[in-house]
């Protein structure tokens, strides 16, 4: 009897604790009928006839959702939060002045070799170039590249240079602009900490600040720009990404 009921429950995917409960329910029913003087065969027949598969399945599903409800809610919340954050990070890292000449070509004559910007491997969260702003529905230029990092991660100068600008504004947050040989300029935005002053000479590999999310950035990342003689370059051509 036990095996037969168990087989029905397993067949209809009733598992775990609820399987024990239903098994106990139907076996108790069977024993109850036997104790009323009904023959084994008749009791078994009656018990099986009372098992309503449709109800069993519905109850099984209902109980599953009672226990998984919170997990499902948390997963939904996480997904929507993640989507929201990625949209926001993308929109805030788009610069609003498109009147800049963009040079997409890789210059063969470019001989400079950038040193490391951040420790560890580089993760690009937003690339350089024109792209359609998802909210404003117009083409805007992203003047640099966004690199995913954690707050407090060290930012290093990839070249020898001189500090051209250090400052803070609402859009860029704490920012640094360095000028280098051959007319190169590099810029670093959204920093949490800046550890240098204007006109300071910087050597390649020196720590210049720390990653943050200051200015118009919701999640910590480094916005990095490079230009040559005031023409913006795609940082991908200089970084190993």
């Amino acid at each position, binding site marked *: 009897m036990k095996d037969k009921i168990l087989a029905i429950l397993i067949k209809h995917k009733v598992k775990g604790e*609820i399987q024990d409960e239903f098994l106990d329910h139907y076996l*108790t029913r069977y024993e109850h009928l036997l104790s009323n003087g009904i023959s084994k065969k008749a009791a078994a027949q009656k018990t099986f006839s009372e098992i309503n598969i449709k109800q*069993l399945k*519905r*109850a099984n599903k209902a109980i599953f959702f009672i226990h998984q409800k919170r997990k499902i809610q948390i997963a939904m919340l996480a997904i929507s939060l993640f989507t929201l954050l990625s949209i926001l990070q993308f929109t805030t890292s788009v610069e609003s002045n498109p009147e800049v000449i963009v040079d997409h070509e890789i210059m063969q004559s470019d001989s400079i070799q950038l040193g490391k910007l951040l420790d560890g491997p580089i993760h690009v969260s937003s690339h350089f170039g024109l792209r359609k702003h998802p909210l404003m529905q117009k083409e805007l230029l992203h003047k640099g590249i966004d690199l995913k990092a954690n707050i407090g991660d060290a930012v290093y100068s990839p070249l020898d240079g001189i500090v051209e600008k250090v400052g803070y504004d609402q859009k860029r947050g704490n920012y640094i602009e360095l000028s280098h040989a051959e007319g190169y300029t590099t810029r670093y935005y959204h920093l949490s900490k800046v550890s240098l002053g204007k006109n300071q000479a910087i050597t390649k590999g020196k720590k210049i600040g720390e990653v943050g999310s200051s200015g118009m950035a919701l999640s910590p990342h480094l916005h990095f720009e490079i230009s040559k003689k005031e023409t913006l370059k795609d940082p991908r051509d200089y970084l190993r990404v």
Partner: protein
Amino acid sequence: MHNKIRYTCPMNDHKEFLSGTLSGIILGLLSQNGRMYGYEICQQAKSLSANEIEITEGALYPALHRLEKKGLLTSTKEKVNGRTRKYYSIKQESAQLARDKINALISFSQQLNNILQPKG
């Protein structure tokens, strides 16, 4: 002629009776009997109502799990005839809340009576 009240899984014809009162019935029976297992609850409801109220397992177990999840009930397991039996009882910390729910249902049923069978 009147129909039996059958507490089956929701989506049934009697769903208007089911909503709200099933958990009250469960709490009421548990407060009288201390601890009970599923089949026992069905049988008690049936016998106390002269076979008029029948709670099916499809409605009962989801309701029990819901009440346990809400923290009104607690459960223990025991081995009976080589199988596991789950006993439910009202959680001590929730005894007052359970009483309130039972009283609310009692007063509702009395008011329902007053409306449906007004005296003189």
